[in-house]
Structure formats: structure tokens, C-alpha cells
């Protein structure tokens, strides 16, 4: 693709140059500070960090936009020779899309449900290139749809967004972003909501598009395995500062900063059966940062010299890290893996489900599925979106609207509706939802939410506040969250509150529906470790997921669902290493893995 003639600077200057960017809250606390980097056309930069690290703030600041209550306090953002921050909002609106495009995390809310696809694409193109004739406009749209792997016929263009699958919606957003041929594309975790097979295809598409359109891309993610597959360079953010910046190969083979090493050790990977290791503590929020190195509080190499803020020094070819302790940078021994405890011996099942069937309207989505979970066992329920795994889990939990099944729990038969079960059964079977944003009442403080559990589920309890403090410590939340409303917490924190709510009930069976998919790897590792501890104490876990890396690190047995039918079942090692069913083989093959780069 040729660069548009209007932007001759494109050839002379990098596609993106960020110099000393600062974003602060209105009260002066900084969210990101001192960010400087450059990015060439056609390159993909991975922006990695935990929630609250400022990665999304930084990504949107590149579009000249900050959320309410924050402002860009200094620095410069140059995209293809245009100074974005020095441009007024009106001019900027015209330039966005042409210079820089944004692909949002959730495709479902990014598309207007009332507009047909043809209209959405046509309007986007007309907006940026009004002089284009109808024929060439159609051609451009057909071309970009083909490039992202979508059909471009009339029938498809007449569809509405809800008639597409999640993967197709995300492809459409990519088509919309690439349509005006921008110099820079900012992708904010665009594959978080997708299953692995779809994710692998989308990542492949993104890389091809960047090469063929000559666009630079910023890929924001907390998933290092995905970044490893996609990016040329990686920047690791911690507490709003760059702690490491390196070419992807160099970062994954020779991680220098202790935080990066910790992040890598925290990834559950399909290639290793050892437990991922969490980073203790949590990242400081804006305004809560101490002077000096922000990571010092969680760092095993902490020393007095960490009281001075370290500079981002060159430590190798294109490899920079901000750490004041050279011996920490040089050490490779910081990552150790803990071996998994042996699988518990087979016991009488705690939960046994047979002949589970469910319907969604007229359509049957679950066909005679069955499963059993022993006490203290972790069973992973694996499948793509639409495989019926969530429906199955909800049926067991007592949320099934239209379904039937024989569920035996302990020695009793379980009713299909939670309300008809005994209080004891309801207390012992706890469910954790996929979406932490909707799982907590937005109008109640966390304290109120947790106290309601105590009042209604464990009415006789006297030491309620003490128990609440204990479960909060268990899920690694500070006690200050008690007086917060859910909107003030990050997604990871909300999910931990949801888990705390379940633990408060002292359950025997925990049903987890994709609970780690919204979490950062370091938090994810902590949650997995926590769930393993609980499992060791005798808690049985039914773990619904599409992330085989997570399955590998925590499940004893795996059940693979496809189109509502169980296609494979067996021990985790057996299913992941010698998958029998062709579908399982595809799933295993599509899972992103950084095993090749684990030097241990």
C-alpha cells in the first residue's frame, strides 16, 4: 500500500513518536508519567501491564483523549508528523480515523445495533474521504473486508451487528479501523472476549494487515502469551511508568526488570504443568506511589538505592530497563516453578450430573451431557464460545431456565432451581460469574454486599467483620475496598470481591465461569494459587474456561464440550498431551504458548 501523498513526512519520521508524556488526575496524582518511545510503520508494539498500570490511559492519550477527571499534563505525541496534543478538538476529530484508529475491547458495544454493516462501513469511508466515487468506495470496502476475512457480498452488507458472531464483530471493527488507512492503530485488548481458536485467527489477521497497510499498531494487553505471538516490541508498564522496553525476542529470553520476570513467571502456560507464581502485593494506584522505584515494595531485590527513581537505561540492543539494581537485572534465577501436588485419589463423587439437556428458545444447546466432580477435585469444562459450557455450568448452579438433568449432590438429588434447594445446598455450591462488572450491585458498598451474605446465608455468625477481613486477605484485597462502590474498583478487584463473596459462604463446590479471563496475569496467577489452596483444603472446583494454559496449571481432569456434546474427557496431562478427538487437537494447537522461550 502506498502512503497517502498528503503525508510526505510519513517516510521521514517514525509513524509514532511519544516524548515525555504525562497524564494526571485533576487532583494532581499522575496516572502515567515520563513515557517516551518511537514506533516504525508496519511494526506492532505490545503495551503490557496489570490493571491500574495506566496502559489504557496511555493508549487513549495517543488519540488525544483522556477520560473524565484526568488531563494530559505534558509531553508530545507525534503521529506521522502531526502533533496530536497541539491540535484542537475539532481538527482532531477530522484527523482521528485517518491518522489514528482505535479498536475497542468489547465489539458488542462498539457497534450501533441499528445500522446495517454496509452503512457503517460506507459512512466511515465517506467521513474520511468524501471525494471518493461510489464505485471505488465499494471496491475499497470489498478489499478491506476480504483482508480481514469477512464476506463482502450484498447479503452480508445488509446484516445488522447482532447477526454476527463475536469473532466476526471484532473483524468488522478491524475493517472499520483499517478502512481509512491510518498511520497508527490502537488495539485495546481486542481478543479478550474471544475463544482461543478465534483469537489465533484474529491475531494473525492483525499482523498481516499491519504489514500490508504499512500501519503501526499498539496492542494493549495483560496477556503476555498473546503479545509474544503478535508484537515486534514490548513495553512493560508499572504504576504508570515504563519499566522495560525491548524487542519481543529479547524480552522473553532475557527479561531484565524484576517485575517483568515476575510477570513471566505468573503466566499459566499450556506448555508447563507447574503452578504459576503470583507476584505478592498489588500495584499502587494513582496518588499512592511512593518516591523512588514504584515496584520496590513488591520486589525481592529491594535495597536502599531503590529510594531513588531509577532511569530507563540501555542494557542491550534496543533493550532498556528501569531498575537501580544491576545485580537484579543480571539475575536469571528469580523464576522458579513450584511442582504441582499429585492428583488426589479417586473418591465417591461430590457432584454427579447425568442426561443434562438445555434449550435456548427452540434450539437445543446441550445434549445428554454428564460430569462428575470428586471432593477436592478440579474439573475443567473446556470449549469454544457457543459450545454450551456456560449453559451446563448454570444448569448445575441452579440458574438453568430451560433444561433438565439428573443432578446428584452428595447423597441427595438437587432441584434445578436454586430457590427450591435447601439453604445448606445453596450455601455449599457457590457460583462465580464471568463478568465482574455486572456481578456486584453498583449501588452497594462492598461492605454492604458482604454483610448481606452473612445476614442471609450464615445468620448465626457473630464474628462477621472478622470473617470478612479474613476472606479479603485470602483474595489479596486491601481492607479499604470495603467502603468502595464497585465502580471505583478495577475489573480484577471486582472479580476478587465476587470470589470473596463466595468464600464467605464456606462452600464445598465452587463453579467458576471464565473467572480469570478478565484478570491480569499476575492477579490470575494469584487467583489460581488461591483456588489451588482452597482445593487442597477439600474444596471441589468446576472450572469453565477457554484458556488451556489455565487448565494446565490447575485442573485434575478436563471435559471438552463441542456443540453441546462431550467430545473428550480425561486427566489433564492425557487430554492436553495426547488429545484424541480432532477438535481437541485444534484447540490445543491454537493456544498461544511462550514455552519456546522459557529458558528453564
Amino acid at each position, binding site marked *: 500500500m502506498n502512503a497517502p501523498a498528503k503525508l510526505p513526512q510519513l517516510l521521514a519520521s517514525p509513524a509514532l513518536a511519544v516524548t515525555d508524556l504525562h497524564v494526571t488526575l485533576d487532583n494532581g496524582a499522575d496516572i502515567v508519567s515520563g513515557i517516551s518511545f518511537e514506533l516504525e510503520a508496519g511494526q506492532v508494539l505490545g503495551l503490557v501491564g496489570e490493571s491500574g498500570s495506566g496502559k489504557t490511559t496511555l493508549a487513549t492519550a495517543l488519540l488525544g483523549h483522556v477520560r473524565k477527571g484526568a488531563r494530559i499534563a505534558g509531553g508530545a505525541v507525534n503521529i506521522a508528523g502531526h502533533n496530536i496534543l497541539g491540535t484542537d478538538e475539532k481538527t482532531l476529530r477530522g484527523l482521528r480515523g485517518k491518522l489514528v484508529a482505535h479498536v475497542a475491547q468489547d465489539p458488542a458495544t462498539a457497534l450501533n445495533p441499528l445500522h446495517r454493516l454496509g452503512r457503517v462501513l460506507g459512512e466511515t469511508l465517506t467521513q474520511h474521504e468524501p471525494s471518493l466515487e461510489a464505485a471505488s468506495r465499494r471496491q475499497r470496502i470489498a478489499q478491506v473486508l476480504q483482508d480481514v476475512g469477512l464476506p463482502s457480498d450484498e447479503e452480508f452488507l445488509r446484516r445488522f451487528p447482532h447477526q454476527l458472531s463475536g469473532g466476526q464483530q471484532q473483524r468488522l471493527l478491524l475493517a472499520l479501523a483499517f478502512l481509512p488507512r491510518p498511520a497508527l492503530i490502537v488495539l485495546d485488548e481486542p481478543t479478550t472476549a474471544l475463544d482461543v481458536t478465534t483469537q489465533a485467527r484474529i491475531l494473525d489477521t492483525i499482523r498481516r494487515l499491519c504489514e500490508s497497510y504499512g500501519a503501526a499498531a499498539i496492542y494493549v494487553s495483560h496477556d503476555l502469551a498473546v503479545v509474544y505471538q503478535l508484537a515486534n516490541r514490548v513495553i512493560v508498564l508499572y504504576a504508570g511508568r515504563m519499566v522495560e522496553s525491548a524487542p519481543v525476542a529479547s524480552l522473553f529470553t532475557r527479561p531484565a526488570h524484576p517485575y517483568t520476570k515476575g510477570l513471566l513467571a505468573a503466566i499459566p502456560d499450556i506448555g508447563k504443568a507447574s503452578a504459576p507464581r503470583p507476584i505478592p502485593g498489588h500495584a499502587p494506584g494513582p496518588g499512592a506511589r511512593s518516591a523512588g522505584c514504584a515496584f520496590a515494595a513488591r520486589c525481592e531485590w529491594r535495597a536502599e538505592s531503590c529510594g531513588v527513581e531509577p532511569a530507563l537505561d540501555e542494557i542491550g540492543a534496543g533493550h532498556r530497563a528501569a531498575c537501580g539494581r544491576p545485580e537484579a537485572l543480571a539475575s536469571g534465577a528469580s523464576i522458579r516453578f513450584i511442582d504441582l501436588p499429585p492428583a488426589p485419589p479417586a473418591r465417591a463423587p461430590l457432584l454427579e450430573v447425568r442426561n443434562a439437556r438445555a434449550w435456548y428458545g427452540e434450539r437445543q444447546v446441550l445434549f445428554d451431557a454428564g460430569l462428575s466432580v470428586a471432593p477436592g477435585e478440579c474439573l475443567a469444562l473446556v470449549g469454544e464460545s457457543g459450545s454450551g459450557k456456560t449453559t451446563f455450568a448454570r444448569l448445575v448452579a441452579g440458574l438453568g431456565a430451560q433444561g433438565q438433568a439428573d443432578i446428584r449432590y452428595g447423597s441427595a438429588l438437587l432441584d434445578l432451581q436454586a430457590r427450591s434447594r435447601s439453604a445448606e445446598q445453596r450455601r455449599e455450591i457457590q457460583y462465580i460469574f464471568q463478568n465482574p462488572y455486572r456481578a456486584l450491585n453498583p449501588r452497594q458498598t462492598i461492605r454492604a454486599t458482604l454483610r*448481606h451474605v452473612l445476614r442471609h446465608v450464615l445468620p448465626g455468625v457473630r464474628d462477621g467483620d472478622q470473617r470478612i477481613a479474613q476472606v479479603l486477605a485470602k483474595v489479596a484485597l486491601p481492607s479499604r475496598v470495603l467502603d468502595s462502590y464497585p465502580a471505583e474498583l478495577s475489573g480484577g478487584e471486582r472479580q476478587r470481591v465476587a470470589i470473596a463473596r463466595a468464600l464467605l459462604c464456606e462452600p464445598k463446590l465452587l463453579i467458576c465461569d471464565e473467572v480469570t479471563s478478565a484478570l491480569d496475569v499476575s492477579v490470575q496467577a494469584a487467583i489460581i494459587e488461591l483456588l489451588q489452596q482452597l482445593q487442597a483444603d477439600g474444596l471441589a472446583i468446576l472450572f469453565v474456561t477457554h484458556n488451556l494454559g489455565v487448565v494446565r496449571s490447575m485442573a485434575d481432569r478436563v471435559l471438552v464440550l463441542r456443540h453441546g456434546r462431550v467430545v473428550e474427557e480425561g486427566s489433564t496431562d492425557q487430554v492436553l498431551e495426547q488429545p484424541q478427538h480432532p477438535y481437541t487437537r485444534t484447540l490445543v494447537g491454537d493456544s498461544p504458548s511462550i514455552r519456546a522461550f522459557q529458558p528453564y
Partner: protein
Amino acid sequence: MSRGFLRQPQARAGLLLSGIALLAALAGPLFAPHGAADFVGAVYGGPAQGAPLGYDYLGRDVLSRLLLGGWSVVWMAFSSAFLALLAGTVLGLVAAYAGGRTDRTLSWSADVLLAFPNLILVLLVVALLGRDPWLIVLTASLAFVPGVLRLVRSLALGVAEQEFVEAAELLGYPRWHVLLREILPNVLTPLLVHFGSMLSWAVTILSGLSFLGYGVAPPAADWGLMINENRAGLQAQPLAVLAPVLMIVLFALGANLLAEAVARSNAGTEQR
């Protein structure tokens, strides 16, 4: 309500306008120089010393009647809007949560009531049963209930499908807890907006009722009644009509602006 509420021009204008009308209605009786039925000047007499708004068609002081005549409109408007809010919310929550036949029956009844224009419904009842103020309040609130019911029902249906309500169901919370503690707080903001709108409709209906002669009985003072009594002398003594008109407009407009400001200040703070 969020902190940015008072920063909005609508909020400040609404507070100012409805504040003037409310002050006149609530504190007015303390300052009225004459009684509502005292004949103190010339018929349709213009503004004079001690009577800045002049005299009405019977020679009574317009200012005094204006200050005395707001109370009835205001208390009746607030009571009818509040009663409708209470009844409509309870019925709407029940309809949304129970579903099935209960929902169909309630929604169907609401639709039938909605088919009657508010003012016609109130006129019908008043013409049949008399003009007792409480009867008028009850009838006006009855006319408002279907609107509240349908609003609460649709909002609650949206909230009820969220996972935190499912979580409450799974934990076996009592049904009243699910309705009042989990669902209700999440529908309150739009309800508050609707309450403001109902206030201004109530003022319009009640004043209209008085104007038509079905409201407060003369010689008591009432803004709607004053407009009707004095409209014959509109050219000779326009103030006797314009002053109560202005008060009704201030109150209705102010309530509406406040409702809009509530809606705006909460638009950004709702959960995703």
C-alpha cells in the same frame, strides 16, 4: 446524586424558578396583607399604594390571593405525584419480578388506564364523586400510576437479568431483599426524573381543574381559579391573570428543569 449536580445550568435555573414559586406558596400565607375574601379595593383596580398587583373582579387584593393561593396547588401536586410514585414503584417491581400472569394483568390494567387522557379521567371522577381535595389527589395519582408502573417494570427487567441479581437468587436471599435492596436502588435515578415530570404535569392538571371550576371552591384562593375568575378583565387588569399564570409556569418549568438536571448529572455515573 453526583457532585456535579449544582454545576449544571439546568439545576441552578430549576432550583431558582421552582424555588420562587414554592416560596410564594409555602411562606406566602405568612406575608399576605389581606385575607383571601376581603374586599379592599375597586373592582379590577390597577396597582396602587399597598397593592402592587392591583385588585380582582370583586375588588380583592391580587397579591394576597396570589400568596394564599399556591398552597393548595403545591400540596396537591406533591401528594399526587408522591402517591403515584409509591404505588407505581411497588406494582412495577412486582410485575417485573413475578412475571407471568401477574405481570400480564398489571400491565394490561395500566394500558387501559393510559388510554384515558389524564385530565379527562380526573374530570370524570370529580364530576361523578365531588370535588373533595383528597379525592382529586387520589384520582390524579391514579392517572399517573400506569406511567410509573411501566417505567419501573421496564427498568427492573433490565436490572433483573444482571448477574448480581442472579447471585442474590443463588444465595437464596428473601424476595423482598432482592426487590428492595438489589433492584430498587438501581432504578431510582430515572424514577427521580419521572417524579419531577409528574410534578409539573400535576400542577398543570390541578390548575386546569381549578380553571374549569372543578377544583378548589371559591372564595378560597387558588392560582388556577384566579385565572378563570379574572379572565373577563384581562384588558382592564391583566396582572390579576398574569401573576398566577407566571407562578404556575415557574413551578412547572422549574420542576421540569430539575428533572432534566438529575437525568444529566447521572448519565455518566451509571454502571456500564
